């Protein structure tokens, strides 16, 4: 993650979305969504399929007209309706937006020329991007001969070519094998380190946790929560789960741990004690000391922190991947 966080960055946001709404017939695909992205920030839109993520970014990219709401893009009040604003935007669609009968270099050159990059500069940029996405060796091959992961990387590379101020990545790892997925995530992390503002949509909570400075959780068209991972976890009030296994005076230890500082709940079954602890890392040492003092020989400790999946479940009553 980058250091650029909302509130800590005084530069004007590259993207400011306010009250965005879009309905298809009677169904509200996006309902009053608002958020901002600061320069250099990676913002994640996390939600299940059909939550309204793609509709939201389609409006930001100018592909769909919002029914209401306002988009301020890279300083342009008219948002993506202005060509100049769209020149500052890079879009990596969910579908593989590349031409199969062109080589990787030809794809880059075609989209680069449509962006208006001068020929000489375009040649240099194509080389740079091919290097970044790791396709320099295969740049002359038709993309229909590429693996799924290579196509995904090229898909991202085309979005980067004109060095946009904001890069929108719509579920860039869908249908990708684990190895390629990791390569894509590393590329995104590298872009973030270079200070590029990113809007990243995903329904994989691990990706959002790994990549995003801030996350907006969307469900059924609405933004149900927003913040850093820690902020989101705190919003839900979820505590950590700690499990202590061992022998000796387990029941006595359970009773003592139930009264220990930070412990919300405790239960034991003779060999294992299950604790619900607010901020387990802070209290773990004192909890182990208490167990030892009560005569329990602890042989195994397991700490599981709540994740965004738990947050989503808490907020919506449904699992993220339902």
């Amino acid at each position, binding site marked *: 993650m980058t250091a650029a966080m909302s509130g800590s960055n005084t530069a004007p946001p590259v993207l400011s979305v306010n009250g965005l709404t879009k309905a*298809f017939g009677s169904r509200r695909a996006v309902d009053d969504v608002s958020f901002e992205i600061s320069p250099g920030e990676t913002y994640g839109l996390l939600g299940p399929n059909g939550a309204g993520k*793609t*509709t939201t970014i*389609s409006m930001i*990219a*100018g*592909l*769909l007209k919002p029914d209401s709401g306002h988009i301020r893009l*890279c300083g342009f009040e008219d948002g*993506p309706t202005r*060509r*100049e604003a*769209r*020149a*500052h*935007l890079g*879009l990596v*669609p*969910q*579908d*593989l*937006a*590349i*031409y*199969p*009968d*062109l080589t990787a270099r*030809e794809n880059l050159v*075609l*989209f680069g*020329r*449509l*962006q*208006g*990059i*001068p020929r000489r*500069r375009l040649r240099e940029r194509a080389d740079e991007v091919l290097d970044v996405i790791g396709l320099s060796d295969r740049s002359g091959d*038709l993309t229909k001969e590429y693996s799924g992961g290579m196509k995904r990387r090229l898909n991202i590379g*085309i*979005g980067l070519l*004109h*060095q*946009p*101020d904001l890069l929108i990545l719509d579920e860039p790892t869908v249908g990708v094998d684990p190895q390629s997925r990791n390569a894509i995530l590393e590329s995104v992390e590298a872009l973030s380190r270079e200070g590029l503002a990113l809007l990243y949509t995903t329904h994989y909570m691990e990706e959002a946790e790994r990549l995003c400075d801030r996350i907006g959780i969307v469900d059924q068209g609405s933004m149900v929560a927003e913040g850093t991972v820690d902020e989101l976890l705190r919003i839900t009030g979820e505590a950590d789960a700690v499990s202590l296994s061992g022998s000796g005076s387990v029941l006595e230890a359970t009773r003592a741990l139930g009264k220990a500082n930070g412990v919300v709940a405790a239960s034991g079954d003779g060999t294992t004690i299950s604790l619900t602890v607010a901020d387990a890392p802070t209290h773990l040492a004192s909890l182990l000391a208490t167990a030892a003092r009560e005569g329990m020989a602890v042989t195994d400790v397991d700490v599981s922190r709540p994740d965004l999946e738990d947050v989503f479940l808490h907020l919506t009553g449904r699992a993220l991947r339902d």
Partner: protein
Amino acid sequence: MAEDHRTSDVAAIGVMVAGDLRQRIRDRTVFIFALVVPLALMVVFNAVFGGMNPEKLSGVRVTLVSEANDAAAGGLAGALADLDSMEVDLTRLPHSDPNAATPKLKTAVEDDKVDVAITVPADFTRSLGTGGQPRVTVVRRGGIEPQIIALVVEGFVSRAAAAAKAASVAGAEGLAPATIAQVALRVADSPPTLDVADREAPPGQLSTQGALVAGQAAFFMFFTIGFGVVAYLEERELGTLPRLRSLPISPHTVMTAKAVVSFILGVVATAVLLLLGVILFDLRYENLLTVGVVVVVSVAAVTASSLVVVRVARTAEQAQMITAILGVVLGILGGSFFQLTGTGFFARLADLTPTAAFIRGVGVGADGGGIADAAAPLTFLLGFGAISVVAAVLLPDRSPAR
């Protein structure tokens, strides 16, 4: 940070057209549908239909056996010799008993020594004059020329019989024998009612082969042009369309580029097919400028109609299906495979197709007519294109929202 780059819509269209054409060339499908298949069909149709409309009748060898001084047989020989439509190599064999010669004549026909053998029975003229029904025997080979000779003989005999009947009635009414003979002779010697003449196609109408070539070019014009605009729907399915529409170019640029690609493919394919007609089928286009204008206007009109298809279809597959149906229906109506004959609703409908207008326009150019001579088909094509453009603008986009 983004560098400040700008591109004009015209430059963007050029870039997209170049990219599209490069892909079409690599894909090769367009070559198959635009050139290989129509060329193959031209050859097949020419082989099947080309021979059904011979443009010149060949000569025919005829042997006529009759009594030496039979007047009616002489009249028949004269009628055959006077045929304008073909060259008749007539041999007269006098025979005292002509019917006895018939077997030999049959053998001569079978041995290809003669194409038609005619036996006029003995006392032919006298038999006719007394109201009898003498039988003339015709032995012939296959083919249209011997058949024409047989028809001429049949016509002559019918007239002779009619003359005999007239003479018989006149005799009963007390007409003088000299007058009766005159009537009979006049009728029998009258020119044959059947006359087949070589005629060139009327001005502005293509020959059979020319119509086949132009018809196939018109038929496949729909498919070739369809490749260009269907690519717009394919881009939507491929995912490249959202990316293109997010670029700093006008939203109409993408569709315009596809239409330009369609137009280029259509003009090139149609021109090549018409040119192949010259090389392979000896066709001639007297006024190339007129033919060229007809090709350009026709391709523009069909391209405009394909914009309607893009509006109506939800997917590329649907668009291909609609294009195929449109191409086949308009092709059949417009005469891509054979000319619809007749009058009434369907005949008028056939005239109101771009296919028919294209064939008519090419016909005018092939015949040496100028652009003014081709005004009717050109005006129709321009109107068809204009209506299509208006429809494409007014029709709501049925593509699924994303």
